[in-house]
């Protein structure tokens, strides 16, 4: 997918490969690369999942793999949690139940 210049995007960059990581960290952490994600405007036309250059909102230049165009927020209030409803009922019943 071709992405036009100046689009707001999210890129991913590898900061440290496993062999470059700090010493004395847990094995499961040291065997994976250290990655970074940052957003900004594309400095040129680019392809999704290819290497691109962006200017971040603070004005820095960063290079990395183009991961997402016009990135959206995906976090939410989560799924229904039965245990939470049960706690709510316990609290209300302990506090006001006898009245």
């Amino acid at each position, binding site marked *: 997918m071709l992405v036009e210049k100046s689009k707001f995007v999210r890129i991913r*960059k*590898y*900061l*440290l*490969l496993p062999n*470059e*990581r*700090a010493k004395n*960290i*847990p094995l*499961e*952490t040291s065997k*994976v*690369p*250290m*990655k*970074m*994600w*940052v*957003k*900004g405007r594309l400095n040129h036309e680019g392809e999704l999942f290819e290497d691109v250059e962006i200017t*971040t*909102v*603070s*004005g*820095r230049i960063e290079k990395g793999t183009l991961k997402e165009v016009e990135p959206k*927020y*995906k*976090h*939410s*209030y*989560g*799924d*229904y*949690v039965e*245990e*939470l409803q*049960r*706690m*709510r009922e*316990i*609290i*209300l019943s*302990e*506090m006001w139940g006898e009245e």
Partner: protein
Amino acid sequence: MGYNVDDLNKRRNEIIKKSVGIDYSDFENEGIGFDYTKMMESSGFTLDNIFDLQKESMVGDTPLVELKNLTNYARKYSKKGYGAKILLKDEAANLSGSFKARRAAVSIHKAKELGYKGVVAATSGNYGAAIAALAAKAGLKCIILQECFDSNNVAQPEILEKARACEAYGAEVMQLSVGPELFYTFMSVLEETGYFNASLYSPYGIMGIETLGYEIVNQVRNKYNKDPEVVICTNAGGGNLTGTARGIKKAGALGTLVYGASVDLTGLHMASDKDFNRKSFTTGHTGFGMPFAINPDRSDVPRSAARPLRYMDKYYTVNQGSVFFITEALAVLEGMERGPAGNTSLAVAFNLAQTLPENQIIVVQESEYTGAGKHHQPQLSFAKKNNIKLIFGNPLEEIPGENIIFPKSAKDIKVKEVSLDKLRKSYLKRFKDNELTHEDKVFLMEELNISLDKLNELIKQ
């Protein structure tokens, strides 16, 4: 790739000095110690200055609320005449929604005064939002670094929400995968940009909270004509407790006890890619609370201004399930949808209030805004997705990373006391090969808040 860890380490002192505007060598003593008082006074701020600059930034002067329903709830499980009043300082009322705005206000003011064009902070939590909001108000650029994703690109919902908040205030957010090398990334950004290091652990970051302790004492005095018996602070890096305790002392409430409270995450490794998403609290837990108490200077400045062992009278832990329970109780009994921060202290306060006479006052010194991602519902939904078992039972049997145990009744919320002497001994361990001078010992007595006899006894052990 991005940078070389060893090279950055060599330039570490130089980068920090340039980015904080403080030469920490000015405070070093001969031997192991340093002059803490001199460091705190070197900022040039008085408490009045800080009140003024916070007021200008819509920070501080937050309500102190008596939680009457929660107090009555605790009294149901207290013996007659017991059940101290539980008060909550509603820090969600600050700009950006948490007490961290108090710290940010002072750092941003200093950055502006010293002529920096922007600020950088490494934080996954409320401090990022606070720095971003106050930088926006001051016209400074802002970069926030977060430890956010595990190697499967899964993020804590709470941290994603904080990234959104920072971006809403116009900041650049660099999201990183798990690992302590965040610190090196932080240094490389400081070096690249020449921006101010808005460290949580600089004197500015701590002085900003002194107003919180001071306000609590004055508000309690005005309404109840006495000082609070106990103030509980949720403890992670130690700054919250240190600043609050200093403020309480400055208000002259010398009889008020200051307790620390952390969520018990024993067994989870903070630098582990695997453990990262198996916890339901990203701060206020023992994974920060313990190591930062034992070694405050493991922070991003050479000498941390956050030194909790100097000020802590007691230290308690509580399990994740109990904090969720009390978070829910705060919402349905007091109409306050807040947290998770601050509710760790509230869970501890709920239990301790039952052991104190009903005319006493116990203050929970902070709360925070909540919302999508941060709310306890997404946190629990996320825990379930990570195969954490949600159980009702004995909260003291919870195994962090495996299960979350909710109390079946509020009466089952129990706390564990952490031995301060054990922490002090761990603190002293790194000096076991040092020949301690008189000056060293004076430093350690202040550092650990103990007498010379006690110090000698702990060293012997």
